[in-house]
């Protein structure tokens, strides 16, 4: 039985979607806010995430980004009242696989859910046995699956937070990622450190990957805002 994480804060809508999905033989875990969604996704395995955007605590776009840091393959279907082309583009850019606007057709929703799960299963089967994801920049490389990396001083093992931070910066290549954004996405619902902690992580990453950490080529600071990965 395929498992679906449904993130919807409107009680009635959540009830109706859950009921219909269950009647189609999906196992549904429904939550009503962004932080619970992140927590639940981390604790359980899902085949699909249906995600509202306007959510209490953490919005759906940030939830999606967080999900993508941990799982690049699980299909995410946005279900939102926001219906402009810009909203759809943002949703898809943040890692969504599909976007439906409210009010929607039940049949269409069920069909899209089915197709997304089938497609993801196929991709998963095809990718099994393939080599892990490696990202190269300059003389460095990072393996996001084995947490191994090669820096200026040779091979090293990165911590989970270091991997997540690098992944977030690389996914937003040439764009500034604010400290608040990093805190929300990398540290998510867990104990929030102060922004100084991020600076320390950045310093460590620069030591690994920059020839001159004081004049960084890849991990650059944007004063008063945050950091950006440049290549």
């Amino acid at each position: 039985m395929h498992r679906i994480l449904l993130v919807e804060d409107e009680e009635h809508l959540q009830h109706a979607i859950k009921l219909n999905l269950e009647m189609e033989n999906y196992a549904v875990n429904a939550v009503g806010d962004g932080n619970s969604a992140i927590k639940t996704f981390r604790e359980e395995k899902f085949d699909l995430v249906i995600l509202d955007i306007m959510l209490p605590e953490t919005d759906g776009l940030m939830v999606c980004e967080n999900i993508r840091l941990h799982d690049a393959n699980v299909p995410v279907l946005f279900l939102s009242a926001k219906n402009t082309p810009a909203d759809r583009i943002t949703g898809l850019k943040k890692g969504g696989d599909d976007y439906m606007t409210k009010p929607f057709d039940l049949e269409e929703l069920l069909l899209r859910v089915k197709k997304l799960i089938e497609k993801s299963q196929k991709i998963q089967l095809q990718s099994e046995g393939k080599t892990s994801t490696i990202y190269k920049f300059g003389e460095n490389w990072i393996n996001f699956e084995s947490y191994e990396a090669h820096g200026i001083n040779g091979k090293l093992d990165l911590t989970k937070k270091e991997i997540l931070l690098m992944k977030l910066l690389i996914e937003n290549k040439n764009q500034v990622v604010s400290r608040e954004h990093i805190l929300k996405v990398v540290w998510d619902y867990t104990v929030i450190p102060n922004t100084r902690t991020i600076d320390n992580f950045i310093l460590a990453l620069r030591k690994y990957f920059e020839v001159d950490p004081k004049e960084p080529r890849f991990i650059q600071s944007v004063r008063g805002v945050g950091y950006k990965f440049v290549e």
Partner: protein
Amino acid sequence: MKKLAVIFTVLSVYIVAAFAWWTYAHIRNSKQLQQAEIENLELMPYRATLQVREAVDQEMFADTNALKKFFEFNYPQLDLYFMPDEGDPLFNYMIVPSKNTFDEINQRYKRKVWMYSLEGIVMVLLLFWGIIWVYHTLQTRLKLKRQQSNFLLSITHELKTPLASIKLYLETLIKRDSLDPQQKQLMLKNSLSDVTRLRDLVDNLLTAAQLDAHKFNVTLEDVNISELLHQTIDKYCMPRNLSSRLETVIAKDVKTKADSLAMEMVFTNLISNAFKYSPGDKKVKVTLSTLEKHVNIEFVDEGAGISKADKEQLFDLFFRAGDENTRKTKGTGLGLYIVKNLLNLHHAEIIVNDNSPSGVIFKISLPYHA
């Protein structure tokens, strides 16, 4: 907003510096002019002595009176003193700058310094007033624009969500034959509650539009405000099972002139807000009392409270605190605008105070016509 403040601060500093420089330059020019006038005045006796001596040599004057007349006519800035003890007064005299002339030059300089200083100050003040006015206007516009954009987001959500839910329930009822009666009953009940939510939203939108266009009229008539408050609270709390969280201290049979429909809207908005912003286990208190010529009604909650900055904008059209994307409570920012404007039509007041230890108190003060 921060960028705007920086631009206006830089502009203000530049203007003050420019006007300070303008004032200083004018005062310095006046000082130079004063010095030149004094120097010129000090040289004048030499020129005058030569010219007078020339005229005396040509025997133009019969006596000192004629000489004095000639002198006073031609050299009003100088004084002529005869020295008869030293011989013929026509040849023995002294010409000096007049003290009055020195005083006049100094006075003129002082007047100019005052004039430029005052002009500078007045201009700086006028410009400051203009800058502050422009800044406030821009700030208000930006705020309104942000509120309108927030309103668009919230109204989109508030309109589409119940619609989506009703549509989905109806489609489910058509598609699923296997639903048991309780499930069907629950779906219909939820759909009806969404219809009520939509109706309330449409009512609020229409009322806000009418109030904004000053086209909402109230009919003041004798209303038992105690009964109306009781009825409105029950109507809101009973279907939502909120009565156990409600505490009321309502004086009996208080009557006053009011529009009952408008007051019902006011009470519904305030009671729904009190519950909306209170955690699930906290009480909401409603009191009604009379004091001198006023009926006082208070809605007290124990929620998170409202910041000082938000309190100032609370009754503005479209105002909602925080970010619409991550809001815990749903709404449109119309409710308190409607409340405030309906109370204005009753010549009533509403104030918002902090509750202790947490939460807020909305206090209505309605004129009492016993």
